[in-house]
């Protein structure tokens, strides 16, 4: 039997390392170390209920496991064959699910990029090889010309998963056709989208897939050097990549004359130091060169003049992760999945107000409704769905009416959002759309490199105006001005960061115009979330003078004698809501 323990970042944050250790101890105790193997894997995706322990082969899916649960899992399940019921996943319907294959969360998913995540031990190359690892590289080197490889990738219809959706094969071909004594293959692992962690999960769960794909790309484009640009804040992914690179070198799968061919390829790591704009490929290249990560005007494209001014192919982690499968199963197999214009699958980091937060991979063309209400299990706490935000700071907020939109690059663009790198945040009736727009703008303002005026100054001004709106200080004509700023910034910014920065504002204005108007005309926040437009007051008739609220108030804004009606000093009040929670007599109200 195998015990798979999720070793993704989320689960590790809740001590899944110790769980694995405890399980091993317990197995030892019961003398079962030889029959049962404990494997710390990459992310299972079902982060909402982490840490996860999965028992194979019966697919028992234990959720929210603590190290001290190890003794029960071993003594009850493994020794006695009884599932530990209290650890089983309970569906939102309340029903216990005994086998992960019956979880709604996994039912609609097809795992290509995540095929090995939560399945193999990412620190063991043998497990990757056992799953056809490096077979694609071997096949390519033995049986195909670079052009044939490029043709297969083109034929598969694979498009860049980093945001823009540019056809990967075409990109490879550009790099291939630019002759040079030296070329580079770069993997963009500088995932900086707030609320996206799919690249990290792939690197943590299946690092070899990316290495193999980069080598394939190196062969196809004529590069013998690969560079992975990875966020320094991803220590686990870095560690696993380093191990994977070492193992691949040991096996001769990186290095000189791979598979006894004339092809040499090696990979180095470069660390990103916290700049979202470095997701833009020219900025990324400058950063790798030790410069400020500022984007430059294209052309020249990296395929013409990239790293150290040599032709360079840049793709992101998820894009690469698809490549070995395309080679092994054939482009035809791949292109049958998804839609005609967007083949294959897409990984999303599903988060926010859904029941099942986690990492999912669905075929292109799956609808937002399926993702949110089937895989995601609907809205948390039975609240009402309000919006879903895709594409992170570059994307937009979509509403009820867009729920049946099949997800692909073009469809999302058409409705005012975008695929982006795959963040998907669900919002409910308590979320103020103006505040959400402001949140994203704040991110853009912080992450703007400052090179071009519309992004540097324009976004700052937009953020200020949004701030005014949420404070009830804006006028109706400001809304028009805001719209104009959006259009100009989108129209004139230097790089994708600035060009798409207005999307969260434009899409919320488009879909939630009334909400903007309410803030401006009535100084009212319909979601009741804008603090400046809120007042906590005490209803004298209900107040019994129990002093509970005054004791809870962190800033001492509430005064009143015992058994006397209390009062809130509005100047001191920070609107934290502690008084509302503390009052047992419904004497605190929000206005």
């Amino acid at each position, binding site marked *: 039997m195998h015990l798979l323990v999720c070793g993704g970042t989320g689960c590790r944050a809740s001590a899944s390392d110790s769980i694995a250790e405890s399980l091993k101890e317990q197995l030892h105790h019961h003398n079962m170390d030889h029959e049962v193997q404990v494997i710390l894997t990459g992310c299972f995706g079902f982060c909402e209920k982490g840490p996860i322990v999965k028992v194979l082969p019966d697919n028992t899916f234990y959720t929210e496991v603590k190290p001290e649960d190890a003794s029960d899992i071993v003594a009850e399940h493994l020794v006695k064959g009884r599932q530990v019921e209290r650890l089983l996943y309970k569906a939102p319907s309340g029903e216990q699910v005994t086998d992960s294959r019956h979880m709604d969360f996994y039912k609609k998913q097809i795992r290509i990029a995540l095929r090995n995540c939560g399945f193999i031990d990412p620190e063991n190359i043998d497990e990757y090889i056992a799953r056809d690892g490096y077979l694609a590289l071997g096949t390519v080197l033995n049986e195909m010309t670079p052009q044939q490889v490029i043709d297969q990738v083109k034929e598969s219809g694979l498009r860049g998963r980093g945001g823009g959706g540019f056809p990967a094969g075409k990109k490879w071909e550009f790099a291939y056709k630019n002759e040079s004594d030296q070329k580079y293959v770069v993997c963009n692992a500088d995932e900086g989208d707030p609320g996206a962690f799919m690249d990290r999960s792939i690197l943590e769960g299946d690092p070899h897939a990316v290495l193999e794909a980069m080598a394939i790309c190196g062969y196809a484009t004529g590069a013998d050097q690969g560079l992975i640009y990875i966020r320094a804040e991803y220590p686990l992914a870095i560690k696993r990549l380093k191990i994977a690179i070492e193992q691949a070198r040991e096996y001769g799968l990186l290095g000189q004359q791979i598979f006894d061919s004339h092809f040499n390829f090696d990979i180095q790591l470069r660390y990103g130091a916290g700049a979202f704009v470095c997701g833009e490929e020219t900025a990324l290249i400058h950063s790798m060169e030790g410069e*400020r990560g500022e984007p430059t*005007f294209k052309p020249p494209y990296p395929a013409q003049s990239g790293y150290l001014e040599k032709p360079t192919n840049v793709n992101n982690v998820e894009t690469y992760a698809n490549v070995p499968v395309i080679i092994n199963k054939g482009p035809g197999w791949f292109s049958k999945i998804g839609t005609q214009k967007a083949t294959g699958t897409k990984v999303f980091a599903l988060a926010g107000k859904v029941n099942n937060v986690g990492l999912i991979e669905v075929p292109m063309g799956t609808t937002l409704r399926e993702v949110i209400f089937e895989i995601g299990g609907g809205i948390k706490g039975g609240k009402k769905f309000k919006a879903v935000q895709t594409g992170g700071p570059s994307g937009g907020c979509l509403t009820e009416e867009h729920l049946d939109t099949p997800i692909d690059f073009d469809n999302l663009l058409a409705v005012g959002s975008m695929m982006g790198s795959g963040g998907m945040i669900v919002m409910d009736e308590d979320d103020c759309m103006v505040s959400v727009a402001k949140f994203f703008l704040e991110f853009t303002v912080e992450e703007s*490199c*400052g*090179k071009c*005026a519309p992004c540097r100054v*324009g976004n700052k001004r937009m953020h200020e105006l949004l701030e005014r709106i949420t404070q009830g200080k804006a006028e109706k004509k400001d809304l028009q001005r805001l719209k104009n700023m959006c259009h100009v910034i989108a129209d004139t910014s230097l790089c994708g960061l600035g060009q798409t920065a207005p999307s969260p504002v434009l899409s919320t204005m488009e879909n939630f115009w009334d909400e903007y108007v309410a803030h401006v005309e009535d100084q009212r926040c319909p979601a009741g979330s804008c603090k400046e437009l809120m007042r906590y007051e005490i209803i004298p008739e209900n107040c019994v003078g129990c002093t509970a609220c005054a004791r809870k108030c962190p800033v001492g804004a509430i005064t009143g004698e015992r058994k006397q009606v209390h009062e809130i000093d509005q100047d001191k009040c920070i609107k934290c809501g502690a008084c509302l929670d503390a009052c047992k007599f419904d004497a605190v109200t929000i206005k």
Partner: protein
Amino acid sequence: MENVKVTIDNQTVEVPKGTTIYKAAKQIGIDIPVLCYMELEDIGIENKPGGCRVCSVEVEGRHNLAPACATEVFDGMAVKTHTMRVINARRTIVEFLLSDHPKDCLTCKKSGNCELQDLAIKLGIREIPGQEYAEMSTYKTDYSPSIVRELDKCIMCRRCESMCNDFQTVGALNAINRGFDAAVAPAFEMDLQYSPCTYCGQCVAVCPTGALTEVDHSRDLIDAISDPNTTVVAQTAPAVRAALGEEFGMEPGTLVTGKMVSALRELGFDYVFDTDFAADLTIMEEGHELLDRLNRHLQGDSDVKLPMLTSCCPAWVRFIEHHFPDMKDIPSSARSPQQMFGSIAKTYFADQIETPREKMVVVSVMPCLAKKYESQREEFAEDGNPDVDFSVTTRELAHLIKEANLDLKNLSDDDFDRPMGESTGAGVIFGTTGGVIEAATRTAYELQTGQQLNDQIVFEQLRGFEGIRKANVDFNGTPINIGIAHGLGNARKLLEQIKRGESDFHAIEIMACPGGCIGGGGQPLHHNDTKILKARQQAIYQEDQNKPIRKSHENPQIQKLYKDFLGEPLGQKAHELLHTKYFDLSRKIEIS
């Protein structure tokens, strides 16, 4: 070269492939505004960050606007440069820029000569929406001896950064911070005086706004002239006369020597002298030093330092002191003309007019910002009284002339005062790249060979505009290898050659600014038109040609100076008054 056809505002133009929209439009007289873009033809500097986006235009079939400065045309491209969409974008962007820009135009040094102001006027901007609550970047103002930095006015065009790093390789300025807080500044936002800045002033010369300006001494000048108890002496550098006229609407390259002298007299200077006189003096010292080193070298003295480098340019001197301190004994020990003038004025001339040096104010009019700093160097003062009290730029002088309501164009052509207004053609050509070394060659040749140059007085091989030039002059059988560099980046290349022992030059002239002093940081702004620099260079050569005497050692007032006062070139008195030494100013990591 392949040509492509492009339609801009319904006009078709054929241009070579690779041409930008901006340049193609310019060819047919369509003016697309730019702010960050800067191309200095001939000196190989192009600043094209695509940052300001003011040049945005509409390209048919493209989803967003294209920056005209960076977008290359393609065959069949259709461009609209002034549609309402473009106008709206352009105006909105300039509103953005202004919303983060101080509104002190009334007292700003750049007022009337500011590219941002021009644009605001052109686009008819009357209000900046949201200004009441718009946060503005604030930085402390940095006053160095030469340059004032007011980063509040920085619009991140990055031109200064290009000049400081790509052209000068000084590396004092760099983009710092990011996003709204981004600006261009020295490390740790330190004051320039603690940075490796050479005060060349090329950052000031290209700054489109008032973020980088010169330290203004016009107030000191008014005070000095207004004081009846001081004798105010002017010296004017050669490059000033070739550029001052531009400030009064004259064609670039118009010589205004005589009118400038009139103006200075009108302003109330007691004596109007010429730095050219001191340039001749420099040649006497530097020329003799070169011959001395050369002859010792030819006699087999292996200790002698060759090549000898010129030392007239204070930015260049500061560059070697900062960046190549181990080579600080290579430049000539001769002081610059400005400083030679000062020390002679406050000794020889002060004696003549029986005025104590404390009562004399020597003011230099210079094309240069580093001269302000040079005049303040401790070694150029006696008991705290500087040889040159302060230096004003061509631009500051122009302001004063305008302030005094003088119509430069119609002033009479006056001559400089004597004795220190007498100069030769050799002194004049100090104002352009190659001029110092040509002047030195004229004198050194005659002194070394004992033969008159007569008709061959012009050394064409030393003239030109390329960044690094090499020439060989036959000193009657002895071939002398001469190198010339303008721009400190070019100087760096020659210095590194010397360091590696690969240099076979005997003498090298170095000027920090493009084209030499004519392109100095204190000159009328060229607004990126390097043709202006070339016109000024021609004017300098014209002035040389007009001079009856064209060799420094033939200047009668110089001859008299040596006879009556200094004695021999390189003699003891000359050493005291006309030579200097250099310091190690580099950054040093020391163990604490």
